[in-house]
């Protein structure tokens, strides 16, 4: 269980090659395709970080915007005072801390309540930030002017994605990951084999929240102007949930399968039919829900299973002979 298997090595090598290949995108295009890639990388990180927690626990968290906004605000407040990397660390700590508090308070709630609670959380944080700024500082907007361009943001997101994947992989191999698999199967059993279920969930929620916070921080220079409605935009929370669910939450790589095709699909719709975007996105969406009930990764697994069934049937035949 602790050694790298040959398969894992192969995947690792492929992943490194893949990352290296993707990292060259800014060398080929510095325009639209780069921006599209930034958006894809952004949602890839957010969805994967989200799935770290929500995949094994089946809790649907709508707090993404809260953590994201805290990250963005950390940079907005500190960009003139502290170096950017330090701000990234602070963003991770701040959003992780919030996730910890929320987790301790609410992870004993069952599914639906948690959903609404986290939605409320994002709004609450936005309100409080706005109120504090209105009453104790001048103005709500913060300017973030840096020399960072799209490609720097892309590379940072890519690096963060690598960290998220490695973290996810390490968690999966650790006791914590094993505990989460047991919790996902049966919480009662989990408790009775000695797993501190609440603690495990909180840890994962903190890790997930911290990553989302860092993502927000990385994006701040892209915003240039940070204000609560854009930093704590609830649409971010919804889009993350939806893309992750469309990809599938069973595997670490599954959300990516939601993010890539759907970012491109939605982009195509919105550029081809600017006046019918909502309508068509809605239709596309419903179609996906009905025809891809288990997400893209579910589809892939189904296909694989069909193949596998044939394979094992053949083997069985051989055995009979």
């Amino acid at each position, binding site marked *: *269980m*602790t050694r790298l298997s040959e398969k894992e090595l192969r995947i690792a090598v492929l992943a490194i090659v893949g990352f290296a290949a993707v990292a060259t995108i800014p060398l080929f295009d510095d325009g639209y395709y780069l921006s599209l890639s930034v958006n894809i990388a952004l949602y890839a990180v957010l969805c994967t970080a989200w799935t770290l927690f929500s995949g094994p626990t089946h809790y649907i968290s709508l707090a993404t915007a809260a953590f994201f906004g805290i990250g963005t605000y950390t940079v907005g407040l500190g960009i003139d005072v502290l170096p950017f990397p330090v701000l990234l660390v602070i963003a991770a700590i701040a959003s992780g801390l919030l996730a910890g508090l929320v987790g301790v308070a609410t992870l004993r709630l069952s599914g639906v309540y948690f959903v609404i609670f986290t939605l409320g959380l994002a709004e609450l944080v936005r309100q409080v930030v706005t109120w504090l700024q209105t009453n104790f500082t001048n103005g709500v907007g913060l300017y973030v002017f840096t020399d960072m361009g799209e490609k720097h943001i892309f590379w940072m997101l890519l690096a963060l994605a690598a960290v998220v994947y490695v973290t996810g992989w390490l968690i999966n191999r650790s*006791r914590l990951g*094993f*505990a989460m*698999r*047991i919790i*996902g*199967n*049966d919480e*009662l*059993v*989990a*408790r*009775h*084999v*000695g*797993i*501190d*279920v609440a603690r495990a969930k909180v840890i994962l929620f903190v890790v997930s929240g911290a990553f989302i916070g860092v993502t927000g921080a990385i994006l701040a220079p892209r915003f240039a102007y940070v204000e609560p409605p854009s930093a704590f935009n609830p649409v971010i929370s919804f889009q993350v949930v939806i893309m992750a669910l469309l990809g599938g939450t069973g595997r670490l790589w599954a959300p990516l399968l939601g993010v890539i095709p759907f970012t491109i699909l939605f982009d195509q719709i919105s550029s081809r039919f600017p006046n019918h975007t909502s309508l068509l996105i809605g239709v596309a969406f419903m179609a996906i829900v009905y025809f891809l009930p288990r997400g893209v990764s579910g589809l892939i697994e189904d296909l694989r299973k069909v193949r596998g069934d044939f394979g094992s049937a053949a083997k069985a035949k051989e055995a009979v002979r």
Partner: protein
Amino acid sequence: MSSRSLLSVETVRKAFGGLVAVNDVDFSVKESELIGLIGPNGSGKTTMMNLISGALKPTSGTIRLDGEVISGMPAHQIARRGVARTFQLVRILPSLSAIENVIAGAVFGHVRAWGDDAYREAEVLLDRVGLGRRGGAPTGSMTYIDQKRLELARALASNPRLLLLDEWLAGLNPSELKIGIELIRDLREDGRTIIMVEHVMDAIRSLCDRCVVMSSGVKIADGSVHEVLSRPEVVTAYLGADDA
């Protein structure tokens, strides 16, 4: 018997709203003892098990494990102190393989093994419960007895100081029952402390040193199996419940 008591249950009560499921029950279990917890349906046996394992918290009263108060602790803490259990309706972890199911019991509990150690230990246990070389099997397609075996292996994986078996023999056919009884006898010979809730009287008779009888939440008898089962109040409790 001279050995000290491992578990002591002191005037423990559990009420669900107005319904008192366990009513000020006292008993104790000594090291290496195998006791039967019996009684008609609805008499509070499973509730008692849940109170010991921490699935439920007692309304009042104290439960001690080796002198330490465990009542009120969350289940995982109790598990870490060496209490393992099986469930009345077998609960395996369907998306995990058989051996992973066993390892699950070894990683977080009383013993905290990980990696190759846990794996080797789990293989030994699978072998012991009669599932040798089936570690990679998917658990969903296992037969009922195999699932029960697996659950027992998981409980044993933490090398528990106290093992709770909640109707572990229920639902087995006669030949499976024989195997099951042998398995428990085997454990007892290892010196493991066990409380078993059971309806199968043959098993109680042949396995238990002692048994505690509950009826309507109250302990009505506590003593050696033979003596207790011939007491009139026990007979009435049983006949009354079973025949009516």
